[in-house]
C-alpha cells in the first residue's frame, strides 16, 4: 500500500485527466449538438466541470484561495444557463 500523500497526489492527477476528458466530451457535444437545447446543456456541463477543475487545482496547490472563484463561477453558470434558455423561449432576456 502506497503512502497516503502519494495516493492523494495520484488521485488528484487521475481526476485532472478524467475531468479534462469529460470537459472535452462536452465540448464535442457543444460543437456537433444538433439542437439549441443540446448546446445549452453542453455549456452547463462545461461550467460544472470547470468548477470541478478549479476545486482540484485548489487541492493540488494546497490553497483555499479558489473557493470564491468556484462559488462565483457556479452562480454565473446558473444565471447564464437561465439567460440562454429564456432567450430561446421568449426571444428576449429582460422584458
Amino acid at each position, binding site marked *: 500500500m502506497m503512502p*497516503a500523500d502519494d*495516493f492523494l497526489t495520484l*488521485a488528484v492527477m487521475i481526476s485532472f485527466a478524467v475531468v479534462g476528458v469529460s470537459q472535452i466530451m*462536452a465540448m464535442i457535444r457543444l460543437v456537433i449538438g444538433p*439542437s439549441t437545447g443540446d448546446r445549452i446543456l453542453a455549456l452547463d456541463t462545461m461550467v*460544472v466541470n470547470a468548477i470541478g477543475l478549479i476545486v482540484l487545482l485548489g487541492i493540488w496547490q494546497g490553497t*483555499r484561495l479558489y473557493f470564491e472563484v468556484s462559488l462565483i463561477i*457556479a452562480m454565473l453558470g446558473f444565471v447564464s444557463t437561465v439567460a440562454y434558455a429564456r432567450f430561446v*423561449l421568449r426571444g428576449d432576456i429582460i422584458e
Partner: protein
Amino acid sequence: MTMSEVGTYAAAIFLLIGAAFAVVGAIGLLKLNDPMKRLHAPTKVGTMGIGSLLLGSVVISFVRGGSSIHELLIMAFLFVTAPISANFISKVIIHLRGCDETPELDNEQTWSTLVQREEDLVAQDKTQQS
C-alpha cells in the same frame, strides 16, 4: 495508521469517485441519441460528481488543519440550481419541438400518451357506424 492518513485516503477516494461520476455524465451527454435522453446524463450524474469532488476538498482541508466547510455552500447551491436549469433546458427542447414523436418501443407496446393512433381512430369509426 493515524487519523490524518485515513482522512487523506478518504479524500483521494472521494476525488476518484467524483471524477468517475463526471466522466459518466459526459459519456452520456455524448453517446445518447435523443435530446431528452441527453438531458438526463449530465444534470444528475455530473452534479453528483462535483458534489463528491467538493466533499473530498472539505476532507482534505480538515486533514491539513484548515477545517473549512465553505465548499458545502457550493454543493448546496449546485444541488438547488441543477434541477432548475434542467427544467429550463427541457422547456427549450419542448419549445423547439425536439420531442414531438415518442421513442420507438419493441414488443408492440405503446406509450400511454394522448397521441391518437391510427388503429384507434379506425376502431372508433367502426363503433360509431355500428
